[in-house]
């Protein structure tokens, strides 16, 4: 308990909450009738998702020919969207795992929703490579199982297969981590519920009792899962970058890709966390749990990772010039000033220029500004993947096969549809589970609640510091 907290640290839970008030504030959104804005949001999301599902069925029925991909440009919006969604997922693991290892207490306000976002984003991401295969009914061929074709095995030396392992492992571990964290909170809902809800939450809470030994094991499990999820999350985007970096295409064949992709993933993921959390915070009135301090901390991460991404872009340009290799030089000249110049400048503006505003403390703590920035960054990071994929392929070694690509309505439909899927899942999540980790907030109350820490703290520090 009597954790030493610096008096200059800002409180992370405001409003002088008691344990019971925390339960009330965080559990009650799952108990009330849905609000009108929630229902409208769900209907819109379901409509958008339905259009996506229709576009997917269209692709499967007609074939990949319904997309604008051609012999020169074999990867377009599909792989762009795949990398974009996977990147978004990374912030959830960073918040839940890496910040746990670093003992960053502000993670407790946002970790639950960020982990949910990770799981939903990885689900959206996983759709794209599967659809991209063309014959989706043979998708299980990518897994090494004993089969009647030899048995014929997949190529374990291929980065595309590494991706299959990385993403399925990432999804599984994130889901286990998230659900184990949810179990005690489901028990809290169970103990307040009656009737059919009690039965459902009794099932979901797995028979949780709150025994001291269970809590000890639970914390031990969380810590070790965090310890293995940390290299896992770094490996996932590293392997995604290998899809490009191990090829022989100028503009892709670069050793800078793994760290650059990981930084970009965290950058875009935090932007999506902010987009979601700023809306959730407002609608569920969670201002006492997701404070300006939380938002500022996340904006600092955005500034740091955005700057790393910026340095990576400039390093790429410098190295291509310095290499003295004309194909490499052309690839980057073409990337910046070729037919897709607009996407390059969109990327540069959104990812490199715009985060620099966050050097200002006032802007880091400005909710509206942060919200707009988070949208900008989401767009910018989508452009980054499009720039890497489409602009590079459009101008390959052979000028006679140079081509241009723009998506058909089917490709746009699938992308928009995954947004619909993402928001459907997120909206349902906000109804069935507490969006802020209840037990974890209670565990930091005495070190970070505003009646105990910060400049407005009451003077009863002494009363509980002699607990030992």
């Amino acid at each position, binding site marked *: *308990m009597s954790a030493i907290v610096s008096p200059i640290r800002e409180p992370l839970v405001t409003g002088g909450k*008691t*344990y*019971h008030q925390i*339960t009330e504030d965080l559990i009650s959104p799952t108990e009330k009738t849905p609000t009108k804005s929630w229902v409208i949001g769900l209907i819109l999301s379901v409509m958008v998702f339905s259009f996506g599902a229709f576009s997917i069925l269209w692709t499967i029925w007609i074939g990949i020919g319904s997309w604008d991909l051609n012999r020169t440009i074999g990867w377009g919006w599909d792989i762009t969207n795949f990398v974009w969604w996977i990147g978004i997922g990374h912030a959830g693991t960073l918040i839940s795992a890496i910040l746990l290892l670093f003992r960053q207490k502000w993670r407790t306000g946002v970790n639950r929703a960020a982990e949910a976002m990770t799981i939903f984003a990885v689900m959206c991401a996983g759709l794209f490579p599967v659809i991209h295969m063309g014959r989706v009914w043979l998708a299980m061929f990518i897994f*090494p199982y004993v089969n009647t074709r*030899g*048995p014929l*095995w997949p*190529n*374990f*030396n*291929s*980065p595309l297969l*590494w991706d299959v*392992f*990385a993403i*399925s*492992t990432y999804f*599984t*571990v994130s889901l*286990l*981590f998230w659900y184990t964290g949810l*179990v*005690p909170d489901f028990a*809290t809902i*169970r*103990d*307040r519920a009656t009737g059919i809800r009690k039965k459902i939450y*009794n099932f979901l809470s*797995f*028979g*949780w*009792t*709150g*025994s*001291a*030994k*269970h*809590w*000890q*094991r*639970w*914390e*031990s*499990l969380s810590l*070790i*899962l965090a310890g*293995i999820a940390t*290299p*896992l999350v770094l*490996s996932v985007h590293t392997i995604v970058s*290998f899809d490009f970096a191990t090829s022989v295409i100028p503009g892709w064949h670069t050793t800078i890709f793994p760290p650059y992709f990981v930084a970009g993933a965290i950058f875009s993921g935090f932007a999506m966390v902010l987009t979601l959390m700023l809306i959730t915070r407002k609608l569920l009135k969670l201002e006492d749990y997701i404070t300006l301090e939380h938002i500022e901390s996340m904006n600092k991460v955005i500034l740091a990772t955005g700057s790393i991404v910026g340095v990576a872009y400039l390093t790429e340009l410098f190295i291509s010039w310095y290499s003295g290799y004309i194909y490499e030089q052309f690839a980057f000249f073409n990337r910046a000033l070729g037919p897709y110049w607009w996407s390059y400048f969109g990327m540069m503006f959104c990812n490199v220029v715009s985060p620099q505003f966050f050097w200002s403390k006032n802007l880091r703590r400005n909710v509206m500004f942060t919200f707009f920035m988070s949208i900008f960054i989401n767009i910018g990071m989508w452009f980054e993947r499009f720039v890497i994929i489409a602009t590079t392929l459009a101008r390959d070694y052979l000028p006679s096969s140079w081509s241009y690509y723009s998506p058909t309505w089917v490709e746009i439909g699938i992308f928009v549809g995954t947004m619909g899927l993402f928001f459907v899942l997120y909206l349902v999540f906000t109804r069935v589970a507490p969006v802020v980790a209840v*037990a*974890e907030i*209670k*565990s930091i109350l005495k070190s970070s609640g505003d009646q105990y820490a910060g400049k407005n703290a009451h003077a009863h520090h002494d009363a*509980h510091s002699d*607990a*030992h």
Partner: protein
Amino acid sequence: MANKNMDVIYGLYDDEEVMMKAVAQAKKDHLDILDVYTPFPVHGLDPILGLEESRLHIVGFVFGSLGTLTAFLGMTWVFTKDWPIIFGGKPYWSVPAFIPITFELTVLFAAIGMVVTFYTICGMGPGVTNAYLDDRITDDKFCIAFNKANVDSSAVESFFTSTGASEVNQKSI
């Protein structure tokens, strides 16, 4: 964990620090605590209660090692014995290319192994209902429970009053 048909006497505390002092007092008085239930992990409670460190990390290591071996030996067998193929002029047994999948399966096995072990040893799982003493334990009450058969009831009741329990109840679980 909980034996069937056990009479439990338990006290509820409003604050974890008061509860921790009470646990220390109970240890001093040689009262045999059945269990302590809290709404969140209370740090510093384990040594007072005399709980040993969890050994889940060993489970994680064992399952992780199993994953490492499964992946590495599996790929080795496939590419050197079962169906050797030359990819890009590389040797059949191209160890560096096996590293990513070996790493992923290490993490996957460790995570699944630890989570399944955690729920098993805690007696938890989908559809399991364990008896619990009070609905408010998952809200804001900290509970110390005694098995009535193992303690002197009057001593326990005076213990609860003297250590500041806000409520004392009995329940058969």
